[in-house]
């Protein structure tokens, strides 16, 4: 009887051991899969730092395939994969995305001042007429910003959405 009990105990122990190994293996794969997502999440953050019109070209067509390639290249080395994916994505999030965007699409600066001088220095009535609407739109934006600043709550000057969008573009 004692021998039977010992044999049952041994079989039970073996089953528990095998089940434990399987559980650990599943858990490690689960964790590995989730850790792999971190690089993609950080890269998604870099995408948000890009102007909308550049997100497809820079993130979707260039950085994302590179990230796929990093993941595929270090398929069997999870720690190396994590290191390179984080290094690649964090550098883009912190300074790569805004710097690249500035190169690809330099932001227009001092648009209101330039519009003002175009009106001021117009040499003909036609040039004046051409420059005037731009100045009007820009001045609306400036007034709206000022009102928001002065009242501390959005201000009273209403600016059409298309004017705001155009001025930021």
């Amino acid at each position: 009887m004692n021998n039977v009990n010992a044999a049952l105990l041994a079989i039970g122990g073996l089953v528990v051991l095998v089940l434990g190994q399987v559980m650990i293996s599943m858990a490690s794969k689960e964790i590995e899969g989730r850790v792999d997502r971190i690089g993609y999440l950080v890269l998604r953050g870099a995408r948000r730092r890009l102007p909308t019109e550049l997100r497809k070209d820079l993130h979707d067509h260039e950085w994302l395939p590179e990230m796929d390639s990093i993941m595929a290249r270090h398929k069997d080395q999870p720690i190396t994969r994590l290191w390179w994916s984080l290094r690649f994505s964090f550098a883009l999030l912190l300074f790569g995305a805004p710097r690249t965007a500035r190169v690809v699409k330099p932001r227009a600066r001092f648009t209101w001042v330039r519009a003002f001088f175009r009106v001021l220095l117009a040499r003909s009535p036609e040039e004046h007429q051409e420059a005037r609407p731009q100045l009007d739109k820009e001045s609306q934006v400036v007034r709206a910003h000022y009102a928001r600043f002065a009242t501390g709550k959005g201000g009273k000057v209403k600016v059409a959405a298309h004017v705001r969008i155009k001025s930021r573009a």
Partner: protein
Amino acid sequence: MPEKLRMTTTVANVLREFLEDPAEHRYGFDLMQRCGISSGSLYPILARLEKAGWIAGHFEDIDPVKEGRRPRKYYTLTAEGSVAATRELAALSARLQPPAWGFGPKPATGGAW
């Protein structure tokens, strides 16, 4: 005619890698590893070089379903870029030469006559 480009040592490093074999396809991650610079520095440089016409970007011709990944963008040096890069690297190298003293290297006197 390619545009003029502000030459820094990092840009020179990337250009040198392109000049190693002008016909070879260069990918962002490979350039990162070979030049030893981060993606945050590399991609603005690639954008500047592409905008200036020194390099041209293309997409891999692969079947994403078959390969199981998206096509990567690769860069190659243009003919004009190759000429301009060689010229600029030579100029940078000349600028970085140590000063030539009249009678060999200047002796270290330690402040004494």
